């Protein structure tokens, strides 16, 4: 399967990448590309859209047993689309590959008819994701040159009814009745029992949006405006951002090419409602013959029905807020191997150890037992850990081993943090950063610090007395005695020694930056759509990874090096290996920009935060989305995994930090206190303390040990995901430190648990 997936992705990209990257000018393909792009009325997202669903859904076909039937439909729709745009070459390739996958699918396909959950409304149980992709593809069609006869798909399967999705808002109700309908429902929901009211109130927002869009779509401009003004005030305040976008949209023409709208129309808004409440709603709507609302619920809402107690208002509020509602419960059911990989056993040279002990008087006692414990830990295999070879990882080099030894030595000296033993914070202020500091990273051993700037430069500083030196030129290198012991020292050019180096190459602000674990490379992602790999030996650019055609918001190296992940405005996160110019995986599914990307400590998973206010966790092995976490009320700008890989913290523009249990896919904590966007999150080396840095010029320290302890997970909450959040975020706050006027945009714990913070002074 693995191979197949890679094949598919490659096949799909060859047509484009070959033309764009290798410089082989494939005129035909390129011409067609331009054509489709222009024909798509400049929405510009065509490229990403038409390619990503193909690849990911294909990935899904070969992997996920949930909805192969829909996947096939998607495939056919893609084929149709390609044909209409006369991309015959791609059609051939795709069909060849699809033929393969279709054959694979046929076996489980028959059993998948009722794979959806609750089964209350048959038309709503489609796999939301694939379905959305299907419709997104088809959205592009009306703008394309009209082709009357839809080509008959091969294999005689049911032809996917593309037009149904197209005419999403085909129903023509009397525009004057809309407010009446809405009011009727409002009255009903206000009159039901308290325990159901909170749950049913969730329906308001999606219903409001779709009714408004329906009015706009059917050119009832005035009524739409009135409807908006009348009911927009009733919506929860965390939807204000979306409402603002909606309010700007008053004409049918506006709906074309508006991405937010596309999301609303094509993806189903997911609600979780208890069975009792749902029955109430259904009965009411049927009694009243309220087809208008019923149709919307059937077509645009996905109601995830569960058995048991209805949820309370606070429970619902904690989880809602994302662009497309909550995550479906079965979206978070896949097992995630969140354990850490076994550390390779490295013999620590004993004589060194003794030397250290002598240098640092009075410490040897502590060191011995700790080392033993570490040794025993690494010997036992964590039951939650993925297999060591689940994804291929680069082999350790000698220098890596040396570094590991250094790391262990440092770790032995690290301070035990806790609520009564807070870390010291050293703040690195960037002065005179008129260019605008946009990203910062610090190496794991805290020896180098890099800054990305809005003037498209990347600057690297050494924060140790060791200066930055360049490798000598090739001519000089040939004169060096390669047999000498200090050859590594000799290849460096003393004349170039300086405290900082500037890397030029990007043509737009640098938004993401990441050091490789071995400190030989630096990655930077930029507004110009590229990710660049820089050598820290020569201080030159080695590779420009092109793939995102839009700004790349974030990038990060895997903790084991070699792989890296990037995410950007095109809503897709990509996994790359440094020696491939094409991405290995595409993680598509977010409904808005991917704003931040983080590797899980075991390198098997990637977490992405998005402007659609969800966090997704992706499996690197097969590209599947294994967790969808909702609850933030604003775009997510920072993510951090706990060092044991079990938990995750996320920070957003709403100034809240949320804590997540990855194994169960549950929100387990909410830390309130910041007043502005949180740009930096970091767990201490042992995970006892979470540091958060924000635009409000503060660094705050949180007691995560207590936060994780306080959570009681019984079987019921684990099964339903309805958690009662403890209201104790003030007790968890251990300290708050304000800078003079410096937003905190990066945090880093050194190996000895000293907290480093960085930001640009902003007078």
């Amino acid at each position, binding site marked *: 399967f693995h191979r197949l997936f890679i094949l598919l992705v490659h096949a799909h990209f060859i047509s484009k990448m070959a033309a764009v990257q290798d410089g082989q000018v494939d005129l035909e393909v390129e011409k067609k590309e331009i054509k489709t792009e222009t024909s798509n009325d400049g929405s510009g997202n065509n490229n990403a859209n038409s390619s990503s669903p193909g690849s990911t859904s294909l990935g899904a076909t070969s992997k996920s047993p949930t909805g192969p039937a829909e996947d096939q439909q998607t495939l056919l729709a893609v084929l149709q689309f390609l044909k209409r745009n006369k991309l015959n070459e791609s059609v051939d390739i795709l069909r060849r590959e699809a033929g393969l996958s279709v054959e694979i699918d046929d076996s489980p396909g028959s059993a998948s008819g009722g794979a959806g959950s609750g089964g209350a409304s048959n038309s709503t149980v489609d796999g939301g994701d694939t379905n959305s992709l299907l419709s997104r593809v088809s959205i592009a069609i009306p703008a394309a040159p009209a082709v009357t006869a839809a080509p008959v798909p091969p294999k005689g399967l049911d032809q996917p009814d593309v037009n149904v999705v197209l005419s999403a808002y085909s129903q023509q109700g009397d525009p004057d009745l809309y407010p009446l309908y809405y009011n009727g429902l409002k009255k009903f929901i206000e009159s039901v029992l308290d325990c159901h009211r909170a749950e049913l109130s969730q329906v308001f927002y999606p219903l409001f949006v779709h009714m408004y869009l329906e009015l706009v779509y059917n050119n009832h401009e005035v009524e739409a405006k009135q409807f908006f003004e009348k009911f927009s005030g009733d919506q929860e305040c965390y939807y204000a951002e979306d409402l603002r976008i909606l309010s700007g949209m008053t004409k049918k023409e506006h709906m074309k090419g508006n991405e937010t709208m596309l999301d609303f129309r094509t993806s189903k808004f997911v609600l979780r409602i208890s069975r009792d409440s749902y029955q109430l709603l259904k009965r009411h709507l049927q009694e009243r013959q309220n087809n208008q609302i019923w149709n919307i619920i059937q077509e645009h809402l996905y109601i995830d029905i569960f058995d048991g107690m209805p949820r309370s208002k606070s429970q619902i509020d904690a989880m809602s807020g994302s662009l497309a509602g909550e995550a479906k419960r079965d979206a978070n059911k896949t097992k995630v191997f969140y354990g850490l990989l076994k550390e390779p056993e490295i013999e620590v040279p004993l004589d060194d150890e003794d030397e250290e002990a002598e240098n640092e008087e009075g410490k040897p006692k502590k060191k011995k037992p700790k080392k033993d414990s570490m040794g025993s830990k690494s010997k036992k295999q964590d039951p939650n850990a993925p297999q060591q070879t689940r994804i291929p990882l680069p082999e350790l080099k000698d220098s890596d081993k040396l570094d590991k030894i250094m790391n262990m030595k440092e770790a032995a000296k690290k301070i035990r943090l806790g609520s009564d033993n807070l*870390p010291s914070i050293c703040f690195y202020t960037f002065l005179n950063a008129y260019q*605008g500091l946009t990203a910062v990273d610090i190496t794991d051993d805290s020896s180098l610090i890099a800054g990305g700037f809005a003037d498209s430069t990347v600057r690297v500083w050494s924060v140790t007395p060791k200066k930055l030196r360049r490798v000598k030129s090739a001519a000089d290198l040939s004169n060096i005695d390669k047999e000498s012991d200090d050859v590594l020292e000799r290849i460096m050019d003393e004349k170039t020694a300086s405290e900082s180096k500037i890397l030029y190459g990007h043509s737009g602000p640098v938004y993401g930056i990441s050091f490789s674990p071995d400190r030989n490379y630096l990655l930077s992602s930029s507004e110009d759509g590229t990710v660049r790999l820089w050598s820290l030996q020569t201080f030159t650019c080695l590779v420009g990874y092109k793939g995102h055609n*839009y700004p790349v918001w974030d990038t990060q190296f895997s903790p084991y090096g070699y792989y890296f992940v990037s995410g950007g405005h095109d809503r897709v996160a990509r996994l790359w290996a440094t020696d491939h110019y094409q991405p290995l995986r595409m993680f598509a599914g977010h409904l808005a920009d991917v704003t931040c990307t983080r590797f899980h400590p075991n390198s098997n998973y990637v977490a992405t935060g998005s402007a659609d206010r969800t966090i997704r966790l992706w499996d690197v092995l097969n590209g599947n989305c294994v967790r969808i976490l909702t609850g933030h009320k604003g775009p997510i700008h920072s993510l951090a995994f706990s060092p044991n890989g079990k938990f995750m913290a996320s920070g957003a*523009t709403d100034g809240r930090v949320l804590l997540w249990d990855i194994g169960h896919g549950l929100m387990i904590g909410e830390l309130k206190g910041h007043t502005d966007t949180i740009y930096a999150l970091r767990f201490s080396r042992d995970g006892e303390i979470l540091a958060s840095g924000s635009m409000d010029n503060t660094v705050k320290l949180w007691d995560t040990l207590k936060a994780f302890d306080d959570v009681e997970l019984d079987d019921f909450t684990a099964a339903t995901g309805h958690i009662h959040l403890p209201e104790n975020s003030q007790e968890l706050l251990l300290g708050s430190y304000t800078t003079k006027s410096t*937003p905190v945009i990066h945090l880093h714990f050194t190996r000895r648990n000293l907290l480093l913070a960085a930001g640009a002074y902003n007078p």
Partner: protein
Amino acid sequence: MAEERRPKQCTVVLPTESMKAMAESIGVGQLQEESCAALSEEVSYRIKEIAQDALKFMHHGKRRKLMTSDIDHALKIKNVEPLYGFQSQEFIPFRFASGGGRELHFYEEKEVDLSDIINTPLPRVPLDVSLKAHWLSIEGVQPAIPENPPPAPKEQQKAESTEPLKAVKPGQEEEGSIQKGQGATSAEAKGQCKKEGLIRMKPRSTHELSVEQQLYYKEITEACVGSCEAKRAEALQSIATDPGLYQMLPRFSTFISEGVRVNVVQNNLALLIYLMRMVKALMDNPTLYLEKYLHELIPAVVTCIVSKQLCLRPDVDNHWALRDFAARLMAQSCKTFSTTTNNIQSRITKTFTKSWLDEKTQWTTRYGCIAGLSELGPDVIKTLIIPRLTIEGARIKAVIEGPVVSNIDKIGADHVQSLLLPRSTLTVSQSGIGGSVGSRTPSIIKVPSSLTLMSTRPGTPTQPSPPATKYIVMATSAGASSTQQVP
């Protein structure tokens, strides 16, 4: 929930006139009203869309301010050519013009003479980006160094000193920061506080100074009273601007009050002046709130105003300037700190008046009292000084024209006279024309440059109007008119 902040944005649309103006600017003459309306709606929508995208770039640029470059990038991802030449960093240089019944916003493009640019000297090269490290926190406690914000913001200091009961509350809501600001409250103590919950006392503020602070204190105080003027200026500058002095404030105020006590006895004019300059610097520091230390500072300042003798040779040395300077400080602190609770101003006024009224008061003290009162504003001058002008005039006359008793008295009387004269004339002339307390009376005493007092206001003498002078002359005494010519 969102009831009160109901968005009204859907109605915001560009005026159709703008469309017309734009159409005209590209040569389309008669644009129909309907097309204008349609266009303006479309344009408004697109502008909103671009603004939304630009916001994204602002967020990722980690800024709070939207910049023109953000708009450019937003246009770029929409495949629209960016607006070249809009590289304004701070503001959008729109100008407004109206005429012929039309209103226009345009942006100004000045003609620039190239030779001007070539001939002007090059501006200073901006500094390159640099990294600077400092301790934001040491084991949970934020050190009071200039790189960090003042540990206790001025508002909090004020709240603590004026309303000590209320000041505890923010501490409860947001432990950590404030307690730490109070000084070296250890982490354990804080933990206990938390457990005690409701019955939490106002945290004891320990006044232990770190080694650095002790060093700083020593250096600063030595520099302030030392002989090197350059060092002193630097030290005073530091006192007036450094944000981390909160914890050293009690030391400084004790230093000043003790210093004044000793030096008054020793008649060391120079040192008294230096100490008063320290008071001034402390008052100027925007991060300090002195209310808690006024009980030490005010006696010191008042001593410098009214003391019988401030210098060894009262006939030669210019101790008058010190009195004036201290009087100004007094007035400033009255203005800043006087409340209905502490009644500083009225208490000070009483003190001054009492000793002025005393027949036996020396001329030096008399001068100080009058100077102190006259700094307190036109109201005080009107109610307390003016009614006594006649009596005072007579007294001055007696000294000046009478038999020479002592030279010192004569000089004192002289000074009192010159102090009283312009002040009263000014006030009288003000009240004469019906204007009342508008502006504060400027002091006329010029501070001798040799003493270099840090004066807040330039000592510009105002020319009183002639008729008022006459009135004064008549009011004081006719005989003295020859000597009372206004300079």
